[in-house]
């Protein structure tokens, strides 16, 4: 399967096994580190872009100079439904409260809300004093209760957990009876946190905003799905930019490797002289160097990329989520899009491997034009 030149190239690697091993290990970890740091935010962003398409078209909130404030449900729904193009209006009751392990998001689930997402026969809507919790909320009490503190302090009985597959949107979410949620958040009776509005067509989102704003007798702020996705994209792009900064030390390390590799190859000019004296052609010598570096770089690229995939798309994603997204408790299970991952890894591998290959081939090309006697003599003088 392998020709003599390839076997000879590997024999050359074995002449200096530790140097080659060190180069391989450095390349592997450089590709794995840089690849992971670039791939993880991109995978999260790509996945969110897909999943966010299911969110409501517009979120409408009442604002005053101090910020965001609750809106009266009946008047708000009337005002929103009067606008042509609005398909559905759903008041949302939600807010942030303190849980046993830190802040949690509480949501009052509407009567028609639950059965569709959970086909489990045990599932029922949370009654007064009951809660359905996301996968990431641990109950420290064997009785399955969850103490929450917002406007009031109250303990709720956990009756069900949301599926782990929905973790990207429900990980630390607590679903309560709407009345419980209102009391806990401190909303007055008949008020909601905001309105979720759906429009008939995606392009209507922006066109309808002025009509919606004009329909309300108080100042409101609308955030469209597109704006919302842009806000999250901006946040994750900052993460990607930070990740890209790690390229700088990685590139510096590569420069050092290239310098060492070039010096090492230049120091072996006598070998090239002997090969040429024995009748090796320039093509043979270049092929030998090419094979020698490919045998080091190829498994390094494969192993580095494998490690990167394992960390981003495999079981390592949980650890990365804990590390990069700031979870002190159980991080959410990420189900990430793999689209575009290979392109990122090929770019990283290209950036890392091309200089190493060039540093090995350059002395061989230089030696090709040199005289045999000079090569052997030059090595002798060194």
């Amino acid at each position, binding site marked *: 399967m*392998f020709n003599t030149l*390839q*076997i000879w190239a*590997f024999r050359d*690697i074995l002449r200096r096994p530790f140097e080659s091993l060190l180069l391989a290990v450095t390349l592997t970890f450089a590709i794995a580190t840089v690849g992971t740091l670039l791939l993880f935010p991109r995978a999260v962003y790509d996945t969110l872009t897909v*999943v966010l398409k299911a*969110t*409501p078209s517009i*979120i409408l909130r009442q*604002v*005053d*100079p101090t*910020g*965001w404030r609750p809106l009266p449900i009946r008047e708000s729904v009337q005002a929103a439904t009067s606008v042509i193009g609005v398909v559905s209006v759903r008041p949302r009751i939600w807010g*942030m409260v303190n849980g046993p392990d*830190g802040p*949690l*998001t509480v*949501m009052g*689930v509407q009567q028609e*809300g639950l059965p569709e*997402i959970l086909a489990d026969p045990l599932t029922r809507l949370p009654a007064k004093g009951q809660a359905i919790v996301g996968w990431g909320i641990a109950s420290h009490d064997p009785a399955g209760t969850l103490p929450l503190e917002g406007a009031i302090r109250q303990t709720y009985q956990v009756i069900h957990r949301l599926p782990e*597959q*929905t973790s*990207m*949107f*429900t*990980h630390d*979410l607590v679903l309560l009876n709407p009345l419980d949620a209102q009391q806990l958040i401190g909303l007055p009776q008949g008020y909601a946190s905001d309105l*979720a509005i759906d429009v008939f067509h995606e392009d209507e989102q922006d066109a309808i905003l002025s009509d919606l704003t004009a329909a309300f007798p*108080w100042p409101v*702020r609308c*955030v469209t799905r597109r*704006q*919302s996705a842009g*806000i*999250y994209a901006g*946040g994750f792009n900052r993460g990607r930019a930070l990740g890209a900064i790690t390229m700088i030390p990685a590139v510096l390390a590569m420069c050092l490797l290239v310098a060492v590799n070039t010096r090492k190859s230049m120091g072996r000019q006598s070998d090239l002289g002997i090969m040429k004296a024995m009748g090796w052609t320039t093509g043979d010598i270049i092929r030998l160097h090419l094979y020698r570096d490919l*045998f080091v770089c*190829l*498994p390094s690229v*494969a*192993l580095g*990329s*494998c490690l990167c*995939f*394992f960390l981003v*798309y*495999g079981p390592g994603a949980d650890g990365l*989520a804990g590390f990069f*997204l*700031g*979870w*002190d*408790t159980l991080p*959410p299970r990420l*189900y990430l*899009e*793999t689209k575009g*991952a290979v392109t990122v890894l090929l770019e990283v591998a290209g950036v890392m491997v091309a200089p190493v290959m060039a540093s090995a081939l350059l002395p061989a090309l230089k030696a090709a034009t040199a005289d045999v006697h000079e090569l052997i003599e030059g090595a002798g003088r060194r």
Partner: protein
Amino acid sequence: MMQVTYDRLDKAGYGLWAITLVTVLACVVITLLSLDTCRDARQITQRAIQTLALTTPTIIPSGRALRNADTVKPAIDLRHSPHLPLIHFSPEDLVISSLKPETGDIRSND
């Protein structure tokens, strides 16, 4: 007595097989991890989002700035909202009011 030969070429052949095996195994793992096995999870998530009218991904913990980034509005936009009452403010008023006595009148030297 003839010494035992130590043929590095044979050893190199085995090494090449080992490299090929490692590379192929790594590529197989990459291919397996590249398969989109999470489509069902994303569809369930989308149904949950539609049913509960969720807008915020929970990949950032509650209470962090990026978690509810869409609820944050720069104050400058609110100040320029035509629906809000105008706040009369000028540096001149600030200086004059700081010179005012408790009664609210401007102190006069006359």
